[in-house]
């Protein structure tokens, strides 16, 4: 009746997941009850859950990502503390538990923290920067988000019902095949990623179409913001790489569920096939993460230096170069699998070429700062933190790209330090910079600057103290994923890393304090005009938060940095450009499709994991039915009357005119 599911799937004998699960579950229940009692549920349903507005979806993505970042961070704390305690001792996490934690840590951080944060920021900012009203397929966008949330939900359910994979974040066979992973852990992993991967692919299709086919009049490609270019490159990579992930995970599903022999030890299976395919996806994946991050830094550095981005053309070429080359370097993830010296050397050289194009970007950022007037607001601090630490991570990557060096350092803590270095300095710092940068646009008030700086310094120092010792431990020969060890030389470095994670923990606490304080002081921190940072791109032309339709009139773009040009003209002429004749604007209607599809996907995924076949059938049928119901609707748009558009836009114009009047004697021009 319930497949493999029994009451013993709940870890009654393991206090840590049991208590963690109970705390989280009760908290969620309490929040839900409070929401219902206060009558917020209709608002939540109407304004957020069924919203197809890219701005709302972007906020939800970022929220999901930040919550999962916290969950992944707690896993990291457990890993570091276990290793700190487990010198010639068993520590407090037995292998069965520890192995799930490091697998969950990697899976959650990449798929449910980093991806959602980057995708969320792209969702929020790209249509605004392109000067259009929404993405190409708004309902598909909502579906993408909810499917990603489904994946996150399944991974978190595995904490309390059953177990998670004990294979690492990439489930290499034969370890991930049934004989060596007979439990439901790998199955949870597979269905969570297949479902959220479908959502991500939809995002890729959506954004490629939006960026290539929907831009404001006059915005030719070389007038797009750098963030839009990197978003384009990242989404092209998603479209090209995620299908490979889907296919490979399906092959593993077929092995585990139907007894196929793709990768196992029997029947002629080939484990190296899995490793090649998964990294053919895996390497583009890290560029999917880091390219939008680079875009964010381009925006932030140019805004807070008061200068246009240096070498725009060069940056575009470098971005597209990274996009292409990222497909021909995948073997550097397994130089030690014995492919032979010719193959190893070719891939090593290709990897160095990516170092070249990335280096070009770093120099262009430096020259953007050169000759600027740099304001050290929180987003700029994150950018400087990135510039200083990312070059080290990039350097260690170039070292690992040389096969003989990799023969000593593969899978060591040196490797772990390298990829955390580039991902944290690159993606996480960019995520925090982007959140602080666009927060006022999304919510109408800025985040508290003082606490923002506290977050930055604690996180930067914590990162350095955690990972630089791990570089050393790796050089001393310590391999990754050890639940305990007995080599004395490694001990001091492992202890130092544990101290580092504690400092990072303080940074995490500061994040929460920053949010609470900012909400409390939101009136004082209000963004009156919609342009709190003296911005240069089109999103700063709108009010904070922007209306549903973004722009009353699609901007007519005449050059790079269109908003900066508009602003300078307004300052010179001391008045705004005249508004034209307001027209009614049609916008897409809300839809429950995304949420319902994801709900049934969760049911289906859970049923597949536990072999509850009737649940799988019901989930699929109901998902299809829901989809047909959506496809049957006759009205998918609604009109905002011209008078309403005029009223909303009028408020924005009044705020801007007041700002102009107040700053009449201040010259911003060079």
């Amino acid at each position, binding site marked *: 009746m319930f497949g493999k599911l029994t009451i013993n799937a709940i870890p009654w004998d393991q206090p840590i997941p049991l208590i963690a699960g109970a705390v989280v579950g009760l908290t969620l229940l309490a929040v839900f009850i409070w929401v219902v009692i206060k009558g917020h549920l209709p608002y939540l349903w109407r304004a957020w859950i069924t919203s197809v507005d890219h701005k709302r979806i972007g906020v939800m993505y970022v929220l999901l990502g930040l919550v999962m970042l916290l969950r992944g961070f707690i896993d990291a704390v457990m890993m570091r503390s276990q290793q700190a305690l487990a010198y010639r001792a068993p520590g407090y996490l037995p292998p069965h538990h520890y192995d799930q934690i490091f697998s969950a840590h990697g899976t959650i951080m990449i798929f449910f923290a980093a991806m959602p944060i980057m995708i969320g920021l792209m969702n929020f900012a790209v249509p605004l920067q392109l000067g259009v009203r929404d993405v190409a397929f708004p309902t598909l966008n909502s579906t993408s988000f909810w499917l990603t949330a489904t994946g996150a939900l399944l991974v978190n359910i595995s904490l309390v019902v059953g177990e998670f994979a004990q294979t690492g974040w990439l489930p290499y066979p034969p370890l991930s095949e049934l004989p060596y992973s007979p439990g439901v852990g790998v199955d949870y992993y597979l269905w969570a990623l297949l479902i959220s991967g479908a959502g991500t692919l939809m995002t890729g299709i959506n954004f490629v179409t939006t960026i290539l086919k929907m831009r404001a009049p006059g915005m030719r490609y070389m007038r797009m913001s750098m963030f839009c270019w990197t978003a384009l490159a990242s989404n092209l990579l998603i479209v090209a790489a995620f299908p490979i992930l889907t296919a490979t995970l399906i092959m593993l599903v077929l092995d585990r569920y139907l007894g196929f022999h793709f990768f196992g030890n029997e029947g002629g299976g080939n484990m190296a096939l899995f490793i090649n395919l998964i990294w053919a996806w895996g390497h583009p994946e890290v560029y999917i993460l880091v390219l939008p991050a680079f875009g964010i830094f381009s925006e932030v550095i140019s805004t807070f230096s008061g200068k246009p981005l240096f070498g725009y053309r060069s940056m575009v070429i470098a971005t597209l170069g990274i996009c292409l080359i990222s497909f021909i370097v995948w073997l550097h993830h397994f130089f030690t699998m014995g492919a032979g010296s010719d193959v190893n050397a070719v891939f090593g050289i290709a990897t160095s070429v990516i170092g070249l194009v990335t280096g070009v970007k770093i120099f262009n950022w430096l020259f953007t700062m050169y000759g600027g007037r740099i304001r050290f607001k929180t987003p700029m601090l994150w950018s400087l933190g990135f510039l200083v630490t990312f070059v080290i991570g990039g350097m260690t990557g170039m070292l690992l790209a040389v096969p003989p060096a990799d023969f000593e350092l593969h899978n060591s803590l040196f490797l772990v330090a390298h990829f955390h270095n580039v991902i944290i300095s690159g993606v996480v710092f960019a995520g925090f910079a982007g959140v602080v940068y666009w927060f006022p646009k999304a919510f109408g008030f800025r985040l508290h600057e003082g606490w923002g700086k506290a977050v930055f310094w604690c996180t930067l120092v914590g990162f350095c103290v955690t990972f630089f010792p791990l570089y050393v431990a790796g050089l001393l020969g310590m391999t990754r994923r050890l639940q305990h060890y007995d080599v004395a030389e490694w001990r001091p470095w492992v202890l130092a890393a544990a101290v580092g994670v504690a400092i990072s923990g303080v940074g995490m606490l500061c994040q929460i304090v920053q949010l609470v304080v900012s909400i409390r002081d939101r009136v004082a921190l209000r963004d009156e005009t919609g342009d709190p940072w003296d911005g240069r791109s089109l999103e700063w032309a709108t009010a904070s938060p922007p209306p549903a339709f973004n722009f009353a009139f699609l901007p007519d773009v005449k050059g790079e940095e269109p908003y900066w040009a508009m602003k300078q003209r307004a300052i010179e002429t001391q008045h705004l450009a*005249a508004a034209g004749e307001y027209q009614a604007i049609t916008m897409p209607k809300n839809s429950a499709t995304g949420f319902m599809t994801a709900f049934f996907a969760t049911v289906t995924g859970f049923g597949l994991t536990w072999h509850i076949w009737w649940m799988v059938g019901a989930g699929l049928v109901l998902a299809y039915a829901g989809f047909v119901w959506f496809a049957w609707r006759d009205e998918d748009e609604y009109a905002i009357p011209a008078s309403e558009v005029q009223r909303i836009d009028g408020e924005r114009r009044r705020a801007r005119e007041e700002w102009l009047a107040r700053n009449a004697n201040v010259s911003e021009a060079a």
Partner: protein
Amino acid sequence: MTATETLTLPGAPRVQAGADAPGHGEGGPASKRVIVGYGFWIFLLSDIIMFSAFFAAHAVLQNATDGGPSGGDLFNSRNVAIETACLLFSSFTCGLSAVGAGARRMIWTQAALFVTGLLGLAFLLLEAHEFTTMIAAGAGPRRSAFLSSFFALVGCHGAHVSVGLLWLGTMMAQLVIKGFRSDIERRLLCFNLFWHMLDIVWVAIFTLVYLVGGAR
């Protein structure tokens, strides 16, 4: 500098002599039909990449027969030829339905879609027969890695055809109830693209898996 130079136009894309068309360069956003078609093309390209991964696996596992039967031992060329004919002809009838939809002829369109569906169903039945025969003869996907990759690749194509038939049925119903509305037309366009893509993938399977692989 006069105000009109900086005047921003209302939402409609501007059209001037020598200016770019909507959806290109400086022409502003493209029309809905173009956007839907373009997006669906991108999806199809991603689907082809997914098939490529299965093709790659099949290429690697071609000879991993574990002492069991290989392609040459198993493939029935007559069966495959009929399947191919069904699918290719169904692409033709699908094209006919597109012509019918363009001419707003309901009976014509529905008839062509119906025949397309029948041919697709015939393809699936033949394929199911092939699979069951192979499994009964001990040459199922559990026999060897080669057979696993064969069943997965051809099965993936078959799954796409099945989903296509489900889509086809739904579209035929929508056409009857809602007529040739613009969003229905866009969906028919997407269905056409999908069905033709499946044909192209089948040609690749037919060539690489059955012809080349069957020669071993």
